[in-house]
């Protein structure tokens, strides 16, 4: 069911790749506290983690700030 680009399966309505379905079912069998332990990770993100408090008047300003100041590889830039 993979797309021609390789790793990303088709996402047609109702068609869920078997591998993903198995992951969803496995996660559902775990208690929330355990799911959270697996899900929340901590790694240093340059620039983003270098200030203790930041705020923006608008979400659009925040997006622009991310594009201007964060390294592109962090993935915060808009497509």
């Amino acid at each position: 069911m993979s797309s021609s680009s390789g790793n990303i399966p088709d996402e047609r309505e109702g068609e869920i790749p078997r591998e993903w379905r198995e992951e969803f079912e496995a996660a559902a069998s775990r208690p929330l506290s355990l799911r959270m332990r697996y899900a929340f990770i901590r790694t240093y993100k340059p620039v983003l983690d270098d200030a203790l408090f930041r705020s923006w008047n608008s979400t659009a300003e925040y997006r622009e700030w991310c594009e201007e100041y964060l390294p592109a590889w962090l993935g915060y830039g808009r497509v």
Partner: protein
Amino acid sequence: MGAFEYRQAEEIRQTFARHAIRYLFLGKSGAILLGFPDTTQDADVFLERTSENCSALAIALQELGFSLDPAQICEIERGKDFIQLKNGPFDLDIIFAPDGIERFEDAWRRRVEVEGFPVCHLDDIIASKAATNRQKDRESLPRLRAFRNWWMARQSR
């Protein structure tokens, strides 16, 4: 500072409830609460922007251990659209105006409760990520949409 833990989510739930704060978990942290198996670094909460809610939030955050100076408290009380906190026991993004969700009230009506945690419906989480259109969201959206379909089918059983 370590990663966000279940115990800290419980502290948010208890503290916000004590102050009658109207909020919803949003973003990937919200999806994770709903069962989405993936990884993220911080918690995102979407808050109703009323003066009572914003004032209560500033107090609650300090009770949770966030170190806020008077200027920062003022910005929270004003309900600035997007506030990033890294000055407490865990990283927290405070969002008053997420992309892709028109009104808090609509998202509140569609919310899902998981162990007492109010979470945006997956359709709202997906709408928000799709509207943001960031590279990292674009990569995670196919799997999140598949999870939404699986989760909806499971809910209807």
